[in-house]
């Protein structure tokens, strides 16, 4: 009897998933996000969660697929010439912005100029700062010239820097575009109520006539993981972003909800300020590192939702298999004590670890605190608000900060600004000419093998000098309700709804 019931349920489940064959139009897709996206202008946005909404509001020049390969989007093809200094894009024809403005080479030129305008102060500036000129060769051909070769350029254009805003709307609204966004995406903006919801509506003139099945998309923020999942269970949502580790086992066998899992692009760990005491002594950094048991840390705090890390390249990136990146060091308290003795501090030392508010950071910090204590290293934990922690990081006014990076589809975006001398994200004040040379070289090298080798050399140095302790790579999770079909899960964690639909 029981077995029969199980088979019945199984068949039922199969039936549900196989309905997915033919896309259907209509319906409202309700999405549960983990935070409230503040800014709707990709050229002003700094919060990672904004990008979720952007995926459907804007098109990018190029996109990435499941294998993180660059695929056409607003640009249908491109040529890289002049030793990697010139990119010539052929643009898709018949594309219009939501306000009716035509999309063409001039629009692309406008968008780059907007990001490069210093008085506008776009956070995208650093991503496109190598661009020296943007020329409209003809209405549907645009040529972008770079100061020097930059192989991650296309990957950069698959994210916010490649999102095209309507020039007419941007000129009129200025910074106000953050509140009245106008793109070319399959969905257009309807309303945004802070901490409540963002509503998008299908854009009927979108160039992809085989997309945009769903009529409306409603994003709702739930900072609490339990509330997010509970609302999905209750049928109030169709898909949610990220889940609590404790819920994973139950979700794997859930008869109704579908758990999607992927390796992410994100890395997490601890910045160590190398330009001041106590950590200007490399031995102390090595001692601290040796006390940390990354596997236990991950088990305790993340269960199966993260993997131990030793570098900035999570498994989704092609540079993952660089040995210094993927080999996870074992905990070695004897080594830690040895290093402390070498440093002339056999009784250990103490330092302050600043963390952002929130449960996960507190847990990680306390685990590290207890592990370090075994070698006599005393960790004082201090919670600092996100904005303040960034400015203190910037000013190198700290000893250690627990903070990671959301990750980019090209390895360069996961390492360059963090460890190059005076890099925009280089909180550690780390500077090593050899690392600088290698990081710059990796930007010019074009084959994956060459780049892998350069990054391998960098990682050998970083894992000896330890300006940053890489601790874990979080995985990407989505949970789908029974109605959502056709969803493709990509490692960047972005939810693209152009080709998804709802069963009634």
């Amino acid at each position, binding site marked *: 009897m029981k077995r029969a019931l199980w088979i019945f349920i199984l068949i039922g489940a199969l039936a549900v998933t196989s309905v997915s064959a033919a896309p259907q139009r209509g319906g409202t897709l309700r999405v549960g996000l983990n935070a409230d996206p503040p800014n709707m202008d990709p050229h002003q946005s700094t919060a990672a969660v904004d990008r979720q909404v952007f995926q459907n509001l804007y098109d990018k020049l190029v996109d990435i697929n499941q294998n993180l390969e660059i695929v056409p989007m607003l640009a249908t093809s491109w040529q890289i010439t002049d030793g990697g200094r010139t990119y010539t894009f052929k643009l898709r024809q018949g594309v219009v912005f939501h306000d009716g403005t035509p999309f063409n080479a001039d629009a692309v030129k406008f968008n780059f100029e907007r990001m490069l305008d210093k008085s506008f*102060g776009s956070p995208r500036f650093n991503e496109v700062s190598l661009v020296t000129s943007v020329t409209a060769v003809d209405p549907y051909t645009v040529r972008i010239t770079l100061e020097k070769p930059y192989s991650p350029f296309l990957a950069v254009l698959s994210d916010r820097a490649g999102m095209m805003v309507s020039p007419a709307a941007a000129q009129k609204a200025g910074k106000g575009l953050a509140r009245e966004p106008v793109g070319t995406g399959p969905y257009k903006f309807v309303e945004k109520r802070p901490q409540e919801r963002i509503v998008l509506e299908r854009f009927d003139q979108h160039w992809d006539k085989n997309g945009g099945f769903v009529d409306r998309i409603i994003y709702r923020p739930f900072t609490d993981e*339990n509330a997010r999942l509970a609302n999905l269970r209750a049928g109030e949502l169709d898909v949610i972003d990220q889940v609590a580790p404790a819920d994973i086992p139950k979700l794997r066998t859930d008869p109704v909800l579908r758990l999607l899992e992927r390796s992410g692009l994100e890395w997490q760990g601890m910045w160590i300020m190398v330009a001041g005491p106590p950590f200007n002594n490399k031995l102390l950094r090595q001692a601290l590192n040796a006390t940390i048991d990354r596997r236990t840390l991950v088990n305790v705090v993340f269960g199966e939702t993260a993997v131990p890390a030793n570098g900035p390249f999570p498994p989704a990136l092609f540079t993952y298999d660089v040995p210094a990146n993927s080999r996870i060091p074992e905990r070695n308290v004897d080594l830690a004590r040895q290093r402390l003795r070498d440093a002339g501090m056999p009784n250990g030392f103490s330092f302050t670890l600043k963390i952002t508010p929130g449960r996960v950071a507190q847990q990680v910090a306390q685990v590290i605190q207890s592990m370090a204590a075994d070698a006599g290293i005393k960790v004082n934990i201090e919670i600092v608000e996100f*904005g303040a922690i960034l400015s203190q990081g910037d000013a190198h006014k700290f000893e250690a900060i627990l903070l990671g990076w959301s990750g980019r589809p090209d390895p360069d975006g996961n390492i360059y600004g963090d460890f190059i001398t005076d890099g925009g*994200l280089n909180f550690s004040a780390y500077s090593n000419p050899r690392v600088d040379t290698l990081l710059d070289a990796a930007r010019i090298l074009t084959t994956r093998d060459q780049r892998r080798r350069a990054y391998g050399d960098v990682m050998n140095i970083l894992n000896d000098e330890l300006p940053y302790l890489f601790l874990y790579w979080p995985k990407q999770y989505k949970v789908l309700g029974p109605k959502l079909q056709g969803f493709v899960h990509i490692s960047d964690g972005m939810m693209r709804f152009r080709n998804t639909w709802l069963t009634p």
Partner: protein
Amino acid sequence: MSWYLVRRLLLTLPVLFFVSLIVFSLINLIPGDPARVMLGEEASKEALSALRKEMGLDRPMHVRYLLWLSHVARGDFGRSVRDGRAVLDTLLLKLPVTIELAITSLLVAWIIAIPAGVVAAWKQRTALDYAATTAALAGISIPNFWLGIMMIYLLAVNLRLLPPSGYIEPWIDPVRNLKLMVMPSIVLGTALAALVMRLLRSSMLEVLGTDYIRTARAKGLGDAVVLVRHAMKNAMIPVVTVMGLQLSGLLGGAVITETIFAVPGLGRLTVESILTRDYPMVQGVVLFAALAVVLTNLAVDVMYAVLDPRIRLGARTG
């Protein structure tokens, strides 16, 4: 009477001045650079200093205060650092949600408190009285956020009777709106109920002790009539008097309640803006809350003066 009103109004002005001064100085001492918060981790140094200038962060404090005050006086509360919206717009957007929660909570509070208070006073020093007063004390003592968490655990997670959290406008889905408001209203309402019940009990005791009620009783009027017609009418006065206090309690309680139940009202806005260091928004909500209390107190006093001639002569102040 008009003299009293003028005096009362004049006394409000310095209070308002201090309120504005507190709000302004409070927020301007917060650590963390608002320009940095606004532009985020990828901002360039030029963009940062340009924005600091634009926001007037390079000017002396008193100039910034006067500038800010003149803007506030014109209804310009500034723009949110986080999403660039006008602060006043967001406040007005959130206000109806909190008003709804306040009304439902007040209803819960009065439905519990008025009968309990009346009965406790009427049956003074009986088991009923002790039960009611002890329950009120428990109501005052139980921490809001714990009550909220426990209700979510019992009613939403375990029994699945109610949705755990969230909000939908009543005109979109009235049934769901009510379901979502049940737990927050109870959490916020019980706190207030305890306060109102204690107040009502002691004022009822006073009223019941007066000759006037003794006379009514002596005339042979039934208990119910005496209670409802005569005693309660007078005993409710102190309850209404502390409307400002109740409002203050509701707004303070809403901070926690709305945060736990993900109700997008002024309370949650307060917490979010404080946790994200959204300076102009924090200034907006804090000022807004204080103004609401000051004006409610003023309104209650004015109403009093109109209704009760003794006060015009007396020294009721502030």
